[in-house]
């Protein structure tokens, strides 16, 4: 199982979702991905994308200007 970080600061939705989607295609079930963003929209868009594609949000946190989500690649064939 690997842990990977993805810096998506400066990108506006849906680009952070697209980058997560494309990165997860390259990962294995159980791998973890930490994404750092500046668009507050990721706090609902990325969890929604994870729910419909079978992945999990392990944790999320935010400061004034950054939004960080920890994701785990699910066991479905979701991409």
């Amino acid at each position: 199982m690997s842990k990977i970080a993805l810096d998506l600061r400066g990108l506006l939705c849906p680009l952070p979702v697209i980058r997560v989607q494309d990165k997860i295609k390259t990962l294995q079930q159980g791998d973890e991905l930490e994404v750092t963003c500046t668009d507050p929209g990721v706090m609902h868009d990325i969890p929604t994308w994870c729910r419909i594609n079978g992945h999990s949000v392990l944790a999320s946190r935010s400061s004034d200007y950054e939004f960080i989500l920890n994701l785990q690649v699910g066991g479905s064939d979701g991409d």
Partner: protein
Amino acid sequence: MSNKRKAVALISGGLDSLLAAKVIQEQGVHVEGINFFTGFCVEGHTHAIRKKDKAKPKRNNALWVAEQLNMKLHIVDVIEEYKSVLLNPKHGYGANMNPCLDCKVFMVAKAKQWIEENDFDFIITGEVVGQRPMSQRKDTMPVISRESGADDLLLRPLCAKNLPETLPEHEGWVNRDELFDFSGRTRKPQMALADQYGFEDYATPAGGCCFLTDKSYSVKLVDLWKYRGSKEYELDDIMLLKVGRHIRPGGNYKLIVAREEGESRFLQGYKKGFTWLQVTSHGGPLTLVEGEITEADLPLAARLVARFSQGRDADKVSVECVRDGEVTTLDVKPMPAHEIPAEWYV
């Protein structure tokens, strides 16, 4: 082996595509959604950037639709490929810079490519005959089927009964009798069907997220191309058209003046690639310079920037200009609002 048929639905996030996908799901077909990001669907970006709106960011409606339908959604970045559609639309533009018919042909063609690569059977859209002046007319809908290469693999469930039978209907993958005959600009049949399915809180009917249909955005885009001397653009160009006041005092440069703190913060990310100005003696917005500003232009640019600072009524305001890493500080009198020609505002 399951013989369940599979369809991909073009999901914009609006009501029509939601209903079209639902109608086909109800017939036992496996449906997944596809959404294309051209770079111009930026309705949530103002909320994402502006400080006052950050607490209530807009949802992505395509994702919301996918969740309502419990289906996967594939979001595809087509920013580069879309340039050829916008720059050379075979069927021309709509009221603004919107190449709606070419856009729909492009997206259906991409969907056709996707179903071939992913072993799906057909394509669904939420199009309704007569609903849009350019892409959803009785005479242009066959153009989309034909020029996209999708032909009879393209099914429009909401108005299928007004159109020739498609392969999914002919083969019995879907029952034509359970499709619809909606037409025209009225939204009542769609709203009634949404009510029947129990959908609430869907995106505003007939709403669209493409800024190419927006007049002021299109004016800024045309201005960018005109003064750049070419129709080339990058994603950053089209993002910046949504941010700040755009003021063009001369053909060689344009000022992008942040309107509030959130926009200043967003523009900070672009400082490396641009000449920029910042009032230092008073509070004030960050300003980027798009184009090639000369030494002789700086006093005027500084006076304009000072006008939007908290020192707008002061006799003297200090403005720092950073160009190619070189810092110049100018002390200027802010330009009064009434002296700024209206035509400078893009």
